[in-house]
């Protein structure tokens, strides 16, 4: 009994480590393994978690595997083109039924005793079924299905059947997802590939980073140096008109380059030097000057990072997806995006730009990784201590949508995320 009470207290203790009023969190949130276990339960198993984009499962029979926290799931598309998110676990003795990262199949077959499941999870066939006569009926043993909903092609799933619909959860973030999806240049946004890497640190360090403009000119100095002058100027945004806005439910948007918020506006802008080869390739393909301008502008990606609590960010031109592995290890995917049916030259440029900054060999990620690793290490110094997320707290204004908004290099988005975290961890009390 005392152990049960202790377990309850861990969630509450973690909630208490978020000091909303002063804008700070206890460093123990990065390093305490017991808190991590509670986070899997109270956060990841209890809210909408991004599992993939619809373009990753384009046809009947397409599937991809993903994780919700530590739990393996399959995103599949059945013959009627309906999407399913299924637990990747045979109902018999519990082996995973799919180990491929993605692909196309007619069925998921357990390698252990050959139970075969349809794309909708239903148990179709099993060897020597007569031994189950009077024990159970096949219809009672489908792969367990999760509640799944999509918005603008982004598929989320949850183990919690009682929480609000996805669109209510996304709330103020929906407007920004709509803007983000304009970067197909007039074509539907499509996943082109992904980079995968891990770092020895807590998942919340990554969660914070996607809404942290303050680090950019410091950590990414070597990236900015590699750009031409005009592009480097665009990335010199700390003194600009950008902002960070708390969108509620842990979500936030950080607008770094205001002129690239709406990629379908200002199409009369001259084509920047670094996109001149792309523009010419598009003209050579017979694209009209208007289409060329629209595609070139879309090739930039958006000028903002939209951070969706807890595991995905629509980050300028790609999806950043995080997965908590252990208290001190996090896996990250940088998912490259392009246009479905868009000219090859456009998608090639998008992939080359992605390779330039993102992924384990990009010019940006290794320096981020180094900083995050140091944060995790530093969190072990001292017996007690605070992480500050109070930057810009005294200079908040109200946005046109009625949300708290601060300077581009404020920590408004981090505070929003920690407020949601605190709310979810405190729910331990009600359990």
């Amino acid at each position, binding site marked *: 009994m005392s152990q049960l009470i202790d377990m309850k207290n861990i969630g509450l203790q973690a909630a208490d480590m978020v000091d909303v009023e002063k804008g700070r969190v206890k460093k123990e949130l990065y390093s305490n393994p017991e808190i991590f276990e509670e986070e899997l339960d109270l956060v990841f198993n209890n809210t909408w978690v991004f599992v993939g984009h619809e373009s990753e499962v384009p046809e009947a029979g397409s599937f991809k595997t993903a994780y919700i926290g530590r739990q393996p799931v399959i995103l599949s598309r059945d013959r009627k083109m309906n999407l399913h998110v299924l637990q990747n676990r045979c109902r018999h003795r519990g082996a995973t039924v799919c180990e491929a990262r993605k692909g196309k199949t007619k069925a998921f077959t357990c390698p252990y005793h050959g139970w075969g499941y349809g794309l909708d999870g239903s148990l179709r066939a099993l060897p020597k079924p007569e031994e189950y006569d009077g024990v159970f009926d096949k219809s009672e043993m489908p792969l367990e299905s999760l509640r799944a909903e999509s918005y603008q092609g982004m598929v989320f799933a949850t183990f919690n059947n009682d929480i609000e619909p996805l669109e209510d959860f996304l709330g103020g973030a929906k407007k920004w997802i709509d803007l983000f999806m304009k970067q197909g240049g007039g074509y539907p946004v499509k996943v082109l590939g992904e980079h*995968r*890497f891990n770092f020895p640190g807590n998942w919340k360090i990554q969660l914070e980073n996607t809404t942290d403009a303050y680090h950019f000119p410091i950590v990414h100095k070597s990236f900015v140096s590699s750009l031409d002058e005009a592009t480097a100027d665009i990335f010199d945004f700390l003194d600009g008109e950008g902002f960070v806005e708390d969108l509620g439910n842990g979500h936030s948007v950080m607008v770094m380059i205001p002129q690239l918020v709406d990629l379908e506006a200002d199409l009369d802008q001259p084509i920047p030097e670094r996109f001149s080869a792309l523009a010419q390739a598009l003209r050579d393909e017979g694209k009209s000057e208007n289409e060329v301008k629209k595609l070139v502008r879309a090739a930039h990606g958006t000028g903002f990072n939209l951070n969706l609590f807890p595991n995905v960010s629509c980050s300028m031109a790609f999806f950043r997806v995080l997965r908590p592995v252990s208290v001190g290890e996090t896996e990250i995917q940088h998912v490259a995006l392009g246009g479905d049916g868009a000219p090859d030259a456009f998608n090639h440029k998008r992939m080359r730009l992605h*390779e330039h900054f993102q992924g384990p060999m990009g010019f940006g*990620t290794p320096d981020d990784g*180094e900083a995050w690793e140091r944060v995790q290490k530093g969190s072990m110094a001292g017996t007690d201590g605070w992480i500050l997320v109070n930057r810009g707290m005294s200079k908040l204004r109200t946005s046109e949508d009625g949300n708290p908004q601060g300077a581009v290099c404020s920590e408004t988005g981090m505070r929003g995320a920690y407020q949601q975290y605190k709310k979810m961890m405190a729910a331990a009390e009600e359990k």
Partner: protein
Amino acid sequence: MKSNTQLLAQVTEFIGYEADLLDHKAYQEWLSLWTDSGLYIVPTDLNETDYLNTLNLALDDADMRRMRVARLENGESVSAISVGSTVRMVSRVRILEAGDDLVIARCAMTLNELRHGKLVTYPANVEYTLKPTAEGLKLEQKVVKLLHADGFLRTVSFIF
């Protein structure tokens, strides 16, 4: 036309020389080993050969190689400063095609990196497309096929 033994010796010497330059961070000399049209490629998908049409970990033309080297050398990158040493072993060199204009070879490589006191190992198959010139062999293409290319890698602030 050289005998196979002579060519194998020449290619093996070249690959060993390149490995030595990279382990000793002689990046400017490494840049001079390339043809202008050369491509340095680290794929994410080991079954893919249409690299331009695919997302790679790296696909560097001459400009990107120069920028990659500048990033590692100019002291602005915190991860490049933190990289300790790398030691790579190359072996199992085999000539796949011995043309007059291009020589294609494949070898095994294991790169060991000491990073923050921890040893990280990267086994890979490496495919070289080499162009014989008056100044010796030049790199026309180098494809580093990491054994765990589609897994979750540690970040990389050196050149494979």
